[in-house]
């Protein structure tokens, strides 16, 4: 408990110090609970998520960093490895391949990389996975782009 708190505090200080280091990621810690974080990540360019801003929520376990944080998308996203309803993410480093050397910041980077490189063979969103697996890249991209517009684009005005 104490160890996870200390480590999260280090991460917090690091985030404050390097706020502008990675303009695609904006990590924010909950005001009253250091185990709760949110992040805003920008959809990577040259993907159907480009132009969108996606919100992630982190629930950090007390055994962190020996156990991975639980992360999910709060913003709706059409992606083979993200559950369409719950926002749950299928990513190896959040499960078996977790290493305590990962940080919340690097997890965000891994999620951005996953957005750019979907893995249709281990889908949480079967519709999305099936489109890609059947070779209908255009179909996948237009669906993903539509949801980016609908759910992830900053409202004008």
């Amino acid at each position, binding site marked *: 408990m104490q*160890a996870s708190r*200390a*480590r999260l505090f*280090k*991460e917090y200080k*690091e985030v404050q110090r390097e706020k502008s280091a990675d303009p695609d990621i904006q990590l924010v810690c909950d005001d009253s609970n250091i185990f709760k974080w949110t992040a805003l990540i920008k959809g990577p360019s040259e993907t159907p998520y480009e132009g969108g801003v996606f919100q992630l929520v982190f629930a950090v376990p007390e055994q962190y*960093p*020996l*156990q991975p944080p639980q992360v999910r998308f709060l913003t709706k996203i059409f992606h083979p490895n993200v559950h369409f309803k719950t926002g749950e993410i299928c990513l190896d480093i959040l499960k078996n391949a977790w*290493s*305590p*050397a990962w*940080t919340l910041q690097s997890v965000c980077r891994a999620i951005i990389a996953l957005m750019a490189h979907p893995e249709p063979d281990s889908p949480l969103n079967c519709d999305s996975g099936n489109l890609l697996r059947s070779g209908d890249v255009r179909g996948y991209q237009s669906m993903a782009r539509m949801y980016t517009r609908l759910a992830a684009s900053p409202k004008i005005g």
Partner: protein
Amino acid sequence: MKQVEGSSECSDGANPCPICLSPVSQDAYLDRCFHKYCYSCIVRWMKVIASRPSRQAYSLKCPLCKTENFSVIYGYDGSTFQRQYVNQGTVNSTFYSEAHKYRLQCYYTDAGILNDTFNVTRYWKSGKYLQPNKWLQHWLKRDLQALTQEEDVDIIMHHILGVMDSFLKSEQRGQRRAPDLSQKEFKCLVANAAQPFLGRRTERFVDEVELFLASGLTMDAYDEVYTKHLRWKRQPEETSEDAEDRGSKHAATIPYLYLFNDSDEEAD
């Protein structure tokens, strides 16, 4: 352990433990990739890994580089270190007793300090070397453990004993020759047998073997002579600084780790 913070010059400040992100307290290294962590951090992670049923039981992937490692090396004090294997607790540190540690320190003293005590020349001249020494095996095992810091040294021990045995047999069969020739051959044979395992410590080791045989003493009695001669106390809380201080009075030998064959050994 509290660490002094705020000194950005400190290398730990720039290189924090990847697990707690704080300055490394009690350095611990993985045995293959040599990435550094706090001892407590990496051991905690090791336990998490070991508790997973699906995992390969005896290795640990480095959290930083994913290299498979087998043990954590820590408590390095200039001449000795501790080693904790994955999934084995600290079995190793229980086998590596104070006596082993003490013996290893003896190897850092000047060679030949006991030459006045034991008459090596007479040992060879008198032909005493032709008689088997029943205490040798026990002593050999302990010293090999002390030098290699490995528990299972039986293969090395039997290899060396085998070489000595065939030397003895050929000496007993063959004609008597000059004792110094026999001595030379003996030391050469033992050195060749030990070299692959002991590296640069071989020469001193061979001298110790000869000295122990010439002494005709049991292991404990032999240790006693060393203790008396060096006026070392065999106390568990003997710190490395003390040992090095006294060591440097006796010796110019600089203690350092012989973990692997050094590159300059490969060169020759």
